[in-house]
């Protein structure tokens, strides 16, 4: 009788603990919403690959966090902020999504930030570039994971000047992003003792860069900085190649380039370009192992955005496990408290302004003869310490930091 009683007590106590643990997780599941560009400009560098990366993170974590199953949903925002806002709101309102991930394109990230703020959900930005996401436009629950324009400017700008590239000429996309990128880099170049000889604005988007490249050539600057992105960068590099800009002794600093851009250009055209990246697959055994698994699923090597999605989702899940709940504030506190240690970042820190500070890398694109296999594209020239790349917390204008 006594034993039975004890047994019954024990069973009911266990049941109570179990149900208490389950109650900690809202709706009995941890739900991650990946909002990305599947069909438009950024589908190569983010797109399906970031959904695969998130799936890998969930599978590697074991499929459950804090005792609750992890679910993933994804949608294509087509690079349109209103579609992104609509989806994110719907996910938050009626599909119990706890965290929004990826969010390529700054307009999309800003729109989702607004909703994450209203609904008190986490937003893990990997694809968007703008530094203001963790400064003027920051929200308490937004985390900017992979890179930002400041890191690109500092990384490429200062490193190139230090290596003797002290005279610059900019090819700048004629809109806010291009101008701010040019401004950031020019400031870095001048602070390092370099000189900006001039700049020319090209219409956005542009397909014919010949006249701009000729002017850059005529400027006599040692370095031609490309303050543009995506197809513009690719077209500008192609034109520079046709006019023999690099062969004539000038070098190109592409300020926002992904490995998929280099893949599209080919090493013949892209060789010698210097760029800053948050991740390269061939850094060490860990990155190679993960990237190989990614490659088996997608047929491409991961961009820094896709690797960043894995890392951010993984860190989120670890924080959920550690906090024992998917409550936003508790998870956020854990995410800030725990260092980010995985193949993507070593000793990374989630700061109170939402910036995930980790090392960045300055890379130079290899010549075809140096490349030993498919996707062997970069020589890592320098590791840029996180603090240097992203700046100290005091630099951030984030009001809630």
């Amino acid at each position: 009788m006594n034993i039975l009683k004890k047994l019954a007590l024990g069973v009911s106590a266990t049941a109570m603990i179990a149900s208490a643990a389950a109650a900690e997780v809202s709706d009995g599941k941890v739900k991650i919403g990946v909002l990305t560009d599947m069909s438009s400009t950024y589908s190569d560098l983010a797109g399906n690959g970031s959904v695969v990366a998130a799936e890998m993170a969930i599978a590697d974590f074991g499929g459950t966090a804090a005792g609750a199953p992890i679910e993933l949903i994804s949608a294509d925002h087509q690079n349109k902020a209103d579609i992104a806002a609509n989806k994110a709101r719907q996910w938050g309102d009626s599909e119990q999504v706890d965290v929004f991930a990826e969010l390529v394109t700054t307009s999309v990230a800003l729109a989702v930030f607004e909703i994450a703020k209203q609904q008190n959900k986490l937003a893990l930005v990997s694809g968007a570039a703008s530094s203001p996401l963790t400064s003027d436009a920051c929200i308490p629950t937004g985390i900017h994971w992979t890179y930002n324009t400041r890191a690109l400017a500092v990384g490429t700008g200062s490193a190139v000047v230090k290596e003797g590239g002290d005279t610059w000429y900019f090819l700048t996309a004629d809109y806010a992003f291009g101008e701010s990128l040019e401004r950031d880099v020019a400031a870095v170049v001048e602070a390092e003792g370099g000189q900006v000889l001039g700049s020319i604005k090209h219409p956005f988007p542009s397909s014919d860069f010949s006249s701009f490249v000729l002017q850059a050539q005529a400027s006599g600057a040692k370095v031609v900085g490309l303050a543009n992105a995506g197809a513009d960068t690719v077209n500008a590099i192609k034109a520079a190649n046709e006019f023999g800009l690099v062969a004539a002794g000038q070098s190109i600093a592409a300020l926002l380039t992904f490995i998929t851009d280099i893949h599209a250009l080919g090493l013949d055209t892209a060789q010698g370009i210097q760029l800053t990246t948050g991740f390269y697959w061939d850094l060490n055994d860990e990155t190679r192992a993960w990237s190989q698994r990614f490659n088996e699923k997608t047929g491409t090597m991961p961009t820094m955005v896709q690797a960043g999605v894995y890392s951010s989702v993984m860190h989120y899940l670890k924080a959920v496990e550690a906090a024992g709940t998917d409550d936003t504030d508790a998870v956020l506190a854990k995410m800030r408290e725990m260092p980010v240690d995985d193949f993507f970042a070593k000793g990374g820190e989630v700061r109170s302004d939402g910036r995930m500070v980790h090392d960045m890398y300055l890379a130079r694109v290899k010549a075809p003869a140096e490349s030993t296999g498919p996707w062997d594209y970069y020589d890592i020239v320098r590791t840029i310490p996180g603090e240097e790349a992203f700046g100290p917390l005091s630099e951030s204008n984030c009001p809630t930091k």
Partner: protein
Amino acid sequence: MNTKVGYGIALALLLVAPFMIYPVFLMKLLCFALFACAFNLILGYGGLLSFGHAAFFGGAAYITGHVIKVWGLPTELGLLVGAGSAAALGYLIGMLAIRRQGIYFAMITLALAQMVYFIFISADFTGGENGLQGVPRGYALGIFDLQDNLTMYYFVLAVFVIGFLIIARAVYSPFGQILGAIRDNEDRATSLGYDVDRYKHLAFVLSAALAGLAGSTKTVVFQLASLTDVHWHTSGEVVLMTLLGGLGTIAGPAVGAGVIVTLQNYLASGPLGAWVPVVLGTIFVVCVLAFRRGIIGELHAMLKKSF
């Protein structure tokens, strides 16, 4: 009589819809439905193919966002300012464009709309390619909190119904009859003594104002205005909606907008995610080849044939 019953049923459905379907999605649908109906006013009833309506839709979206967010105007006033600015822009663009016909008219509107696009991309207040974000929804009439999706929905529904009634009133008025006459035979309308250009211009301004109202409402719903709104894709999309629903039918464009927005929304998260533009393109081709009168147009024709 029958049509009145039809509209009554439609309105009743719209009133209960937010309890079954996600209200923010419905609001988007209503905004685009109003946009397409406004566009139909000049394409379907005036015979003028404008390829620049995104300028009015998006222009008003930005203006409304700015006056509500920065100047702190109440929501209703913001919508009126947006629609008013679209009307003013429509007056200017219309003044230049209606001097020409057919393809030239379309090209002029497209060119001017592209100018507007580039003004918005480089103007400071629009936030460039980041868009104008974080526009507060505010209160309707100073009491109803629009942050609540259901309240917001009924506000948008009211705006839509008002816009729709204005269009219906215009279409069924003598003004609408003359517009139809101009569309069918401009020379004859001139010979009857009508100042053709003035009628076309007025219709253009009216259409621009209502397209602007739709854009303004969209800004309030999503709390943002972005370059997508002024991009020529949006001008193309509204042509697609109008043609798919039924050119020159009063309810057709709303139905067309419903179909397109629903497809965009539901395909985006399905396995066809990357294929949305392809699917929409195919639908357009099928529509043009197989049922030129559009969904509502074909229904009308079928009803006529069988009764």
